[in-house]
Each structure stands twice: as C-alpha cells, then as structure tokens.
C-alpha cells in the first residue's frame, strides 16, 4: 500500500487555506454591501400607490410649494399627508374625469380615505420631527432627494442611523437659509461654506447626538 495522499494533495491543501481566507473576506464584503443596499434601506425603491402621483409634475412643472400639501411641516413632527380635500381643490376644476384620478374622486365622494404606501419610513422607535429640521434650515431635498425629479415617489436617502448621524454631528454643510428650505431649485451661493456658518449661528444650529434626541 502506497501513500495515503497523492502528490497533488499538497497543492490542494495549501490552496484550500487561501480559498477559505478569500471566502471569509468575500462574505464580509457581501454582507456590508447588502446592509447598505437599497434592498435593506429601501433607498430608491418605488412603491405601488393607489394613484400614480407625480411630484415631478406637481413640483417641477406646476411649481406647487411643498407646504401647499404638506401643511404641518413647519409646525409639527409630521409633515402631514394631504387630505383628499387638498387634491380636490384643483382637481374639481382640472382633469375632472381623468381615469387615474378616479380613486381620489371616489374618496371624496364616499368620504373614504385614500390609502398610500409609506415611502419614507423610519422605525417606530425613531421620533423624527420635521418642524425643527425645517426651522434650522435643512431643506426638504436634503433628506428626500430631488422629489421634483421623481415622476413616482421613492426614498431619496438611505435613512440609516449612520446617515442621520453624519449630519447630526456636523449639520453646517447641509444648511440653507430658512426661507429657501422648500425651494427645490435653490442655487448655493459661491461662498457657501462661509454663509452656512452664518446661517448656523442665526438659527442656533447645534450638533445633537444624544440618544434621547431621536429615541424615547
């Protein structure tokens, strides 16, 4: 009886060591990418909605201000989802019998609310307050992305804790003048950095990284 292992076993044995190392690394990388992918964060994912509402159309083309529909954004934690009423303000004059708007008219007729799928959804243990962010000069687009370029609504940012913290640690680079907050077409001035420092002072912008700022 000869040797237990063929000569090739040596190569195999050594190779297997490196393969194992490689697999471990690859696995780690895969998980990392997955965790940051839209699959997990939902960034950039379009959800089916009862009505194919186009922010692109309403904001970019018609130029309706965010606050026309999201009325409570400056006063409350929730920006507010417009009641059917708001839609009907216009749509009882224009597109009055467009097929796509039937659910809206139905809702108005029977007083049954529309049921949307939430696009920007934070976990329930996170308490986000729109009003304070707006008051400090954080623009809608900073977190929601260029909604004026969204024919169908999708989540414009990862909305992970890390992403929140990046800004909470150093808010200044994300600031605007308060009055420009809802302006999707805002053009930053040349001396942006310098101005942002002024705005930060003016609006008492502080870095807030205490747990209880968001978790209660």
């Amino acid at each position, binding site marked *: 009886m*000869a*040797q*237990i*292992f*063929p*000569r*090739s*076993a*040596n190569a195999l*044995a*050594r190779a297997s*060591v490196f393969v194992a190392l490689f697999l471990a690394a690859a696995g780690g990388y895969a998980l990392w990418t997955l965790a940051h992918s839209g699959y997990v964060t939902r960034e950039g994912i379009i959800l089916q909605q009862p009505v194919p509402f186009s922010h692109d159309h309403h904001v970019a083309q018609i130029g309706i201000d965010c606050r026309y529909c999201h009325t409570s954004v400056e006063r409350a934690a929730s920006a507010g989802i417009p009641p059917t009423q708001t839609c009907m303000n216009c749509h009882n004059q224009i597109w009055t019998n467009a097929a796509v708007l039937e659910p809206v008219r139905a809702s108005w007729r029977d007083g049954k609310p529309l049921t949307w799928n939430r696009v920007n959804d934070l976990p329930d243990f996170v308490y986000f307050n729109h009003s304070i962010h707006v008051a400090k000069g954080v623009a809608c687009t900073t977190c929601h992305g260029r909604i004026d370029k969204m024919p169908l609504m999708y989540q414009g940012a990862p909305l992970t804790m890390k992403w929140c*913290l990046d800004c909470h640690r150093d808010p200044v680079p994300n600031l605007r003048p308060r009055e420009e907050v809802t302006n999707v077409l805002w053009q930053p001035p040349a001396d942006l950095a310098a101005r942002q420092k002024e705005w930060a002072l003016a609006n008492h912008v502080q870095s807030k*990284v205490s747990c209880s700022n968001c978790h209660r």
Partner: protein
Amino acid sequence: MTTATSPTTFGIHGLMAEYSTAQQLLDAAGQAHRAGFRAMDAYTPFPVEALSEVICDHHKSKVPLICLTGGVVGALAGWGLQIWTSAVDYPMNIGGKPYNSWPAFIPVLFECTVLFAAFAAAIGMFMLNGLPQPYHPVFNVARFREKASRDGYFLCIEAQDGKFDRSGTRDFLLQTGAVEVNDVEL
C-alpha cells in the same frame, strides 16, 4: 566545493536509513553532519533536542520572532480599536467617564495581544514546517510509514545534497550503524 544537484539526477528523493535507538540516530546524524551532509533530515516519534540542533545546523527557530510581531500588531490593533471607537468615531458620555478611559481599555488590549501572538506562533510554526503537506516522498518508505511515529528512528540524506551519491552515501549510512537503508522514491 559542493555543487548542488537536482533531485532528478538520481531519480530518487534520497536515502533513508533506519536505526534501532534514538542514541544511534543521534550519533549517525552527528557523523553525517561532520561528513558535510546538510540536505538531510532525521525522524523520531518524540522530540530529541540534540538531534534538532544537529540537523538544523544549530540555527535558532524563527517562530519567536513571528510570535513577537504578532503580539505587537495585536496590541496596536486592540488599543487603536478602542481609542478610535470610544474617543474619536462616536464619543459618548458614559457614566461621566472620559471619552478615552484608558485604564478600562487595558483588559481588551491585553487579550488582543495574546490572541494575535498565539495565532502568529501557531501559524508561523506550520508555515516554517511547510505544513500542511499531506504527501511527502518519505512516506513512500513502508518501514517509515509503520514505525516512524511509533519507535522508528530514521535518517534521510536527500539527493539534492551536493555530496550525495547513490552508492557512496548508502555505504556511509550503513557504516553509521543503520539497521536498514532504503531508497526514497520521489
């Protein structure tokens, strides 16, 4: 004035001599060494320090150096990790303790040092020994397979040694008191 010759010159890995006691093996190895053989190896079921010294030509092992390196790397890694996470990346007021609570970081620092050092030593040892190496010519010798790890004491002079020559070396080995000398096929 030894000129290295490729193993294939003789078509064998080398010559394997078997001795009945560790003592004989040790003496034989000594003689071989004195005779100028270097590309040789001795095989025993248990460590024989003196033998290793002869075979390894009184060189010190490199394992300690590798181990030390591992330890230093581990220490730095452990320390760096803690300082960076606790004081740089996300400093938090935890029970009023300073961000860099270095005394609290000592245990983990220590554990990392030991961990890295130990693995370095182990991995280093295997690498220096060229393991894993499940196939090796010496296993071609039947006697070796059955006795080497039990109570066989073997000395193998390899063909690549400059002074090696198939018949001469065989005679040399026999005359060192080998019970039996076998060719080691490649």
